[in-house]
């Protein structure tokens, strides 16, 4: 009957592909890149690559990492993915202080504002919570098992963030929804009170982020498979503005490139003053910058930073204290990919702030490799290689996969009427004649 693997989301082979991720320490101390099962971090203050020590849980990640994040304080870092592990690291020593086992693969991870809790979402759409202990030397308490606090029924959660004041947790899913839930003082009993639903996307929501102009006023920005970036008043579930990336891309690229499914938003990242939003678009070799007017509550086009044709960013990150926008391109779990080929390409955009646009220099621009902070050491550590030509081959295949993958991964496969009838013939549970 319904017992056949209905629990597996319907995805094709290309969906096993896992994009490279980047995250930046909020105070600019370090930057981390995740590619496949590998975590690579670089200490920007010391100018040296980080060596991660992972003795807890007995193993480092053994399968693709799907989500990484720094906590708002910068003290903690979390990584989680297909190996059903969530790892929590202290960012001063880069030691893993907790390894949490999930029953299912993990699609999103977040750390609460006060560094007390880690939440992670599994592929059934359930969000679990674990309490962290302050003292990293303590043994992990055996009863500290993950508790489920909320769920998006039968959906995959693509992005999960805490609001800056810690009052809310926002979760976005592939079924076009964004849910904003009150995060209670005692979350172990669950987060049952929904504040709002932010509904408006007409395709999967790929990424959400909070942005604010002042301490009291923050907003939610989201990007989706419908090729839009939206601004929300999340307390009331109101859509404030929608930016149609497709229209702009049509102007910039011309008609041959504007295939709908390849214009999904891959990632978004706000600047530290809330005035800009950087947008990574699925098949666009560059970054689009939008002006974010939080007073007038509007999003508008600012400029496009084009990079070399073979570079499509899969993930974006910035820190609160610097004007750098980190971008990374890469993928793992590709067919025919040897493990030695876990290469990524890192490009940095500088002057990622609104007020730099009107000044005499060119404003936001991509840094040359030689101008990257700690240049070669950083690039080698995060990319895995300095050899650009070797990278080009690998990244070309990544490029091709990127163009179709996101759509396949998140959009539930719909079979045509004939195919469905054909599939039904394989069923062996028919009891009633219609």
């Amino acid at each position, binding site marked *: 009957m319904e017992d056949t693997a209905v*629990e597996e989301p319907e995805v094709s082979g290309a969906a096993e592909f896992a994009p490279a991720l980047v995250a930046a320490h909020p105070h600019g101390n370090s930057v981390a890149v995740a590619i496949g099962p590998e975590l690579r971090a670089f200490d920007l203050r010391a100018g040296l690559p980080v060596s991660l020590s992972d003795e807890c849980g007995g193993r480092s990640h053994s399968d693709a990492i799907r989500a990484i994040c720094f906590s708002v304080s910068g003290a903690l870092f979390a990584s989680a993915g297909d190996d059903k592990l969530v790892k929590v690291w202290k960012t001063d020593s880069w030691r893993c202080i907790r390894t949490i086992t999930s029953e299912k693969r993990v699609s999103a991870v977040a750390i609460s504002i006060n560094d007390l809790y880690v939440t992670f979402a599994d592929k059934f759409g359930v969000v679990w919570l674990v309490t962290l202990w302050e003292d990293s030397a303590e043994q992990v308490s055996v009863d500290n098992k993950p508790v489920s606090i*909320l769920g998006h029924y039968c959906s995959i959660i693509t992005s999960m963030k805490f609001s800056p004041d810690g009052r809310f947790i926002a979760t976005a899913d592939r079924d076009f929804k964004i849910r904003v839930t009150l995060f209670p003082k005692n979350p172990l009993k669950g987060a*049952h009170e929904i504040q709002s*639903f932010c509904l408006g996307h007409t395709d999967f929501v790929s990424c959400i982020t909070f942005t604010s102009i002042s301490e009291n006023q923050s907003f939610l920005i989201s990007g989706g498979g419908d090729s839009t970036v939206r601004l929300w008043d999340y307390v009331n579930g109101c859509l404030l503005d929608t930016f149609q990336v497709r229209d702009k891309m049509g102007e910039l690229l011309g008609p041959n490139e504007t295939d709908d499914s390849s214009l999904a938003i891959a990632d978004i990242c706000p600047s530290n003053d809330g005035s800009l939003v950087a947008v990574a678009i699925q098949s666009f070799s560059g970054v689009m910058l939008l002006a974010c007017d939080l007073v007038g509550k509007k999003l508008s086009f600012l400029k496009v930073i084009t990079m070399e044709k073979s570079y499509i960013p899969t993930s974006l990150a910035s820190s609160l204290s610097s004007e750098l926008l980190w971008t990374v391109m890469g993928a793992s779990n590709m067919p025919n990919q040897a493990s030695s080929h876990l290469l990524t390409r890192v490009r940095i955009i500088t002057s990622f702030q609104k007020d730099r646009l009107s000044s005499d220099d060119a404003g936001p621009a991509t840094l040359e490799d030689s101008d990257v902070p700690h240049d070669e050491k950083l690039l080698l550590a995060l990319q895995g290689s300095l050899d650009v030509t070797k990278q080009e081959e690998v990244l070309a295949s990544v490029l091709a996969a990127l163009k179709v993958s996101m759509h396949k991964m998140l959009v539930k496969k719909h079979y045509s009427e004939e195919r469905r009838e054909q599939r039904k013939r394989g069923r062996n549970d028919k009891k009633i004649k219609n």
Partner: protein
Amino acid sequence: MTTNGAGGGAKLPRKRFYRARAHSNPLSDSHFPVPISPEEVDLSQHYPRYFPADKGGDGEEAAAPRRIRFADVGCGFGGLLVGLSPLFPDTLMIGMELRDKVTEYVKERILALRAANPGQYDNISVVRTNSMKYIPNYFRKAQLTKMFFLFPDPHFKEKNHRRRVISMQLLDEYAYVMEVGGIIYTITDVEELGEWMRSCLEKHPLFETVPEEEIKADPVFKLLSTATEESQKVARNGGQTFHAIFRRISLQEE
């Protein structure tokens, strides 16, 4: 199946032509249109008397736009809606049903009732949808005053318990669309499911029990066990029913 014009020509649809299996797979994304948000629900399709099509779908221009207040989740052949309609003639109610043929039956039934009884049954309608996934698409926050879950699929196997329409997870969403003070009605003839639903509601912080005296005084309560085809079948077989009726409360957060 078309109904004739007003007057004696409207015949009630024959269930025989709308037979469907009792179970439908709620996990498969069937191909029915889903409104992106409650603002997109076209009420003129459902309640033409109150929302004439030419004036726009959702009656927003009225001073206080009418909203749907009662939802029958898994309404089956529509028995409860038909029973509730005359009890609350000014309240808009909707049934939500996953099965295509059954939804068509209910649509035809309502049209026929409206034709045969002018001025009545204008306040009920049905929509084909998966209420486990799309309730927030149809209803705004705190919109509903009553929600009904009559004889839901028990999903006996433990691994299928997560498909039950009442669960801690889904109660979050039902609480969201219900106003404080609103009532949730559940009834089943399967004892284990009855215990499960009661237990979920008891554990959920946003619901509290409605005392028995209040339940007995509620004119709606009697309908739960008499109005629907399923309940009539249970009564015919001399079965027992288990109800859990709870009120949506607000949390006092300190």
